[in-house]
């Protein structure tokens, strides 16, 4: 636990250094694409006074000066499968973004979707010595949380205090300065597998970049595509990526649950490929051009040529109707959504005051998905797009870039995590004082 604390703290320091230099890169390592955005921090909210808006979600502090996307290679289920391929893909994206920004970036904040995230709710309680909550008390209460046994081969990705309570007053965002006798905290901890994150670290290091932070893409998609009241009142964000579908639940502007379903758009593509006997690139093309989940009468008449070049006349001149394509795709999409439903039920999503569900990610561009999702997940479903960020190119504003944009916001204004507080040093000064007193007594 200690070394993780240290490494996360080191990453925070690197982020501070990057902020000082004013340039930081954001890397979204997905299964279908790798996006790299270069952010420039122009100082503390230059336009805050002029336009009458506050800091908003922190997106007014920076502008995007470089953006590049590349098809990702060697990544499956959001996890790195072939290291060198992935490294080359990251290099491509970073180089193109650097070229657009015309500036060299050294620090990168990465987000990725795989590695089987698992959420834990932690609680801790401490007695307050001096009747009021100080920074040290917050650190102590965070350290007092009883950490569950999350496994040897796992690491903690996020550990965010969600709720503080002083005595019996709960729901405090910032308890410092409050008077009371007892401070308790609820913390949300997200653990992930160690191997994928180590692979990612290795790849980023091979690209001569320094990792200044790491985020779960489900979390990043949530902070970029949920609007403020949804984050406040309770909502789930479903980030439908290529290899994995991430879901994160927010309430009171904190993430309280995150999980991934290891299925995504790539599986839909492979279903089409298998079902229609076409190669994968063509299946991908059919999915993006003709895909859908609700067939209508019109779709029976819309024929899609499945031309290929095998030399077999019959095989090369097949065609399918769009309804057939939809018939192939829909079961898989339903399966994904049902799996999401299971996770949401397990997390107790039904007990939240508001049960808004926002679909985002590349898979959310599938026509008719919101109708299907509302049948499976509940009535309050909408399609989400990421927050608009200054300087973001038009091509990068789609729902596929929700987690990339979310990581930008994460880079600009990270939420407090456990490692932002100093390790409490309780006991030590008192004991040493006592020892000093004894020494005086013995000698005089």
């Amino acid at each position, binding site marked *: 636990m200690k070394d993780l604390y240290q490494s996360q703290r080191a990453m925070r320091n690197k982020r501070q250094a990057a902020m000082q230099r004013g340039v930081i890169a954001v890397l979204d390592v997905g299964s279908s694409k790798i996006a790299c955005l270069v952010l420039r921090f122009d100082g503390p909210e230059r336009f805050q006074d002029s336009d009458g808006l506050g800091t908003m979600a922190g997106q007014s502090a920076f502008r995007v000066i470089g953006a590049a996307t*590349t098809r990702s*290679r060697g990544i499956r289920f959001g996890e790195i499968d072939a290291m060198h391929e992935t490294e*080359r*893909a990251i*290099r*491509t994206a*970073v*180089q193109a973004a*650097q*070229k657009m920004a*015309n*500036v*060299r970036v050294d620090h990168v904040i990465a987000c990725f979707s795989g590695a089987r995230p698992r959420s834990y709710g932690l609680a801790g309680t401490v007695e307050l010595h001096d009747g009021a909550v100080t920074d040290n008390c917050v650190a102590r209460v965070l350290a007092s949380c009883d950490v569950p046994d999350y496994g040897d081969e796992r690491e903690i990705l996020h550990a965010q205090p969600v709720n503080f309570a002083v005595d019996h007053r709960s729901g405090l965002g910032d308890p410092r300065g409050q008077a009371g006798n007892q401070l308790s905290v609820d913390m949300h901890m997200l653990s992930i597998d160690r191997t994928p994150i180590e692979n990612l670290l290795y790849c980023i290091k091979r*690209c*001569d970049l320094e990792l200044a932070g790491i985020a779960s893409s489900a979390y990043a998609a949530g902070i970029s595509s949920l609007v403020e009241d949804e984050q406040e009142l309770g909502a789930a964000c479903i980030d439908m990526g290529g290899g994995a579908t991430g879901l994160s639940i927010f309430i009171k502007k904190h993430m309280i649950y995150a999980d991934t379903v290891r299925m995504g758009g790539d599986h839909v593509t492979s279903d089409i490929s298998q079902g229609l006997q076409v190669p994968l690139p063509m299946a991908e093309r059919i999915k993006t051009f003709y895909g859908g989940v609700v067939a209508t009468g019109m779709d029976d008449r819309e024929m899609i040529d499945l031309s290929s070049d095998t030399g077999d006349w019959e095989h090369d001149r097949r065609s399918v109707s769009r309804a057939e394509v939809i018939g192939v795709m829909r079961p898989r999409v339903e399966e994904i959504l049902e799996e999401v439903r299971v996770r949401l039920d397990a997390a107790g999503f039904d007990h939240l005051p508001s049960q808004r569900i926002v679909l985002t990610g590349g898979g959310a561009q599938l026509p008719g998905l919101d109708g299907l999702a509302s049948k499976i997940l509940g009535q309050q479903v909408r399609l989400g797009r990421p927050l608009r960020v200054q300087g973001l190119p038009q091509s990068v504003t789609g729902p596929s870039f929700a987690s990339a944009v979310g990581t930008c916001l994460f880079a600009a204004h990270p939420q407090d995590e456990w490692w932002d507080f100093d390790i409490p040093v309780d006991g030590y000064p008192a004991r040493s004082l006592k020892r000093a007193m004894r020494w005086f007594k013995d000698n005089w």
Partner: protein
Amino acid sequence: MRSLSSRKSFRRDPAPSRWSYRFQRLWLTPTFRQVVRVGMPSLLVLAGLVAYLSDADRQRAIGDAFADMRRSVEERPEFMVKVMSVGGASDALAQDVRDVLAVDLPLSSFDLDLESMRKEVESLDAVERAEVRVRSGGILQIRLQERVPAIIWRGADGLELLDLGGHRVDVLERRADRADLPVIAGEGASEVVQQALELLERAGPIRSKIRGLVRVSETRWDLVLDSGQRIMLPSDRPGPALDRVLAWNEAQDLFARDVTHIDIRNAQRPTLRMSANAVQSLKELQGIVVKKDVAE
């Protein structure tokens, strides 16, 4: 499993190689960029120049070429001075000026140092002020203001003409050449020409009788008359003293008497010195001594 290495050969991958990626990052480093774009070219140019100029022959050739170019511009007819004109001077002085300057025209105006020429001309005794300039049309114009001789100074070496300020104007051969000018003599007389002239002005009524003024021990004047009489003036306020003497002369016809020195150095006690004959006569008249020839 298929061979990994052989697959690489035909796969098209847009990914940059590690080295090109590193190079691009290096290129985007501002310091490196500055060094390559500004530092290295300037260093190269500098090194080339140094290598080129380190040869002494080349340096000389470049210097010669430069001098030739300069020469050719300077010697254009527009800049050539062909004639010297000396204005405001007598012919003799003009000839002196030409001799002193000794410029052999035609000459480029760039080669003329007008200031030193002016100084040189002004170093001539007879020139009070000179103005030297190059006029359009290639004329070197020298305008002079001559010193006007005001007095003759008889020094150890002969007669010299002095102007009002006591500056030497010329050497005089004979006194008679400038009979119109008064004469002064004595050590240090040249410094107080102005005062001498003032005294002579006061002595207007006896002007014709004055032979000159003699400066005595650089402090005071003796006015010498053509009869050999001397009026010894005080060093302090000699003018009024002279006026007194003149007034005596008016009243008692002093200069007609047999007096050799009229000493008014002490205003309280003017003294007359008579000639030996006069003293003898006086003594005889007073009966102090007997007239020799009478006694014999």
